């Protein structure tokens, strides 16, 4: 089953006939069955589904972290089917930003350095990276927390740093894996709002997988993943 693509002529992210399964005893359990999805620039798509339904697997495939068993992931017009791992890494570096559950920050780096690392990996000039990192931290209200280590930040602050880090590469595709799962409802709502705002502001095609309600309030589209298929639940308007 497939969801209808948007009417955008060249979506930054397009999933075509994606298939994935995992071992389940002697059988294989299907996680994704011929899944199609197009996400337009600046669009926020929220995917919900029960635990183990394959949401994270879908995100891993969309983020080029894994190669799909079947189907294709098209990023900014580039088909990745049969692409060598090195080229997939290049595409990931230049086009994709990922926000993780619990932020997934690196313990020895300050908030600013988390962002600078992303610039360092992209081999951007140090001065430019620093200015960009400071601008993003200011944008997310973390200007005065730039020199703090993750252990010195609150859960909400850590997640905001994670969002800023994902935006450091000016990605065309922004993916978020349960970004509000480890936060209390108030912080979850705040982080979801920031994530959607930044996605719109930076024009990134955004996919958020969650089983939390907070991101739904900011979704342009809401899809539900079940039995290997994506089903459109509704839009913000509906």
């Amino acid at each position, binding site marked *: 089953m497939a969801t209808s693509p948007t009417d955008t002529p060249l979506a930054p992210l397009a999933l075509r006939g994606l298939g994935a399964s995992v071992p389940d005893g002697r059988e294989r359990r299907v996680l994704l069955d011929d899944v199609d999805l197009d996400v337009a620039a600046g669009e926020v798509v929220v995917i919900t589904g029960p635990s183990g339904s394959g949401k994270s697997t879908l995100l891993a495939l969309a983020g080029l972290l894994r190669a799909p068993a079947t189907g294709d992931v098209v990023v900014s017009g580039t088909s990745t089917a049969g692409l060598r791992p090195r080229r997939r*890494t290049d595409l990931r570096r230049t086009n994709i930003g990922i926000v993780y559950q619990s932020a997934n920050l690196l313990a020895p780096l300050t908030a600013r350095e988390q962002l600078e690392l992303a610039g360092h990996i992209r081999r951007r000039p140090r001065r430019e990276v620093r200015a960009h990192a400071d601008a993003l931290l200011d944008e997310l209200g973390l200007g005065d927390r730039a020199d703090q280590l993750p252990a010195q930040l609150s859960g909400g602050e850590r997640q905001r740093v994670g969002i800023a880090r994902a935006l450091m590469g000016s990605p065309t595709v922004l993916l978020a894996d349960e970004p509000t799962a480890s936060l209390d409802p108030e912080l979850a709502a705040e982080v979801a709002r920031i994530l959607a705002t930044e996605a719109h502001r930076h024009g990134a095609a955004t996919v958020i997988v969650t089983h939390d309600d907070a991101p739904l309030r900011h979704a342009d589209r809401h899809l539900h993943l079940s039995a290997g298929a994506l089903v459109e639940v509704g839009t913000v308007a509906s």
Partner: protein
Amino acid sequence: MFLAWRDLRRTWRRFLLVGAVVALVAVLSTVLAGLADGLVRDGTSGVRALPYTNLAMEPGAAAVFSRSTVTADDADAFAAIPGVEASPVGVSFVNAASLDGGASLDLALFGVPAGSFLADRRDAQDALAGPPGLVLSSEFLDKGVRLGDRYRLGGSDVELPVVGFTIAGSYGHVPIAFTSLATWQSINYGTDARGRASAIALKVPSGTDHDAVDSAAAATGTEVISKSRSYDGSPGFTAETATMTLIRGFLLVISALIVGAFFTVLAVQRTRQTGLLKAMGASDAYVLRDGIGQMAVVVLASTLVGTAVGVAMVAALARTSAPVDLSPRSIATSAALLVVTGLIGSLVAFRRVTSVEPAVALGVEG
């Protein structure tokens, strides 16, 4: 090494254990290098100081003086080659019993003709040309031996006075004493020496026609060996150097294994971090550079500290009677080998780092 430097700076305690082990290996390696150098010096310093470039010995003697007998006249065949100097030399280990009630001395006795290039100092030539006597290594001065003291050489009835002291060094860990070749022959062969000596010492300048040297060797029935090969004949030299090399080799292997094990554990602990870096677009080369670079810093810093401590210990030991010596070259070689083997050890985690899938950053396996 963006992440590696900051990790080292902020979580340096994590590296203390492996750093301490590498530093201790460096200490031990440096001290052993000092001991190896010291034993080599103690075993061969006397022959190293002699100004010869080659020795002509009896074939099959394997550089051992006691296995070689030549005749002093053989030197003439080599001396006939333009530019080559040749001198017979007799070498044997003797015990000198004091006739004045003092302690007996163990000596590596070198018999050298008075006009030999081996005795290049005027006072040495005079001592060898005068009445028969012993020129002893100056360390005997510290043991109370004085000019004029008389000794009977073991295995013979020859009695000799001490006629001088020199910085002679030692051979086979025994202090060297010089006497004239004629005296040496009478000690070893009595009145039936027939011109015998242990070897012909040669001074062959660079650019000499080596065919001529080979021809002279063939004519005299001798075998010409290099000066460095002549050290092999020093009693215990080969066994000592082989033992030291073996111990140091084991130390290097142990160090490499420790670094490898540590880095492997670190790589396992950092699986998610590695996945995250790859998910951010870092290449395998980037991640490896960061990890191996970090180990290189740890190994280098630990080696420097350990080597410094080792050098200080060798310097302290040098003030005792321990046979230690340390050249800058030995220090550098010892430290460089430790760093290189440490880095080789860190490469065992190479596969573990490169095999991490970026999907682990999301907690998705396979």
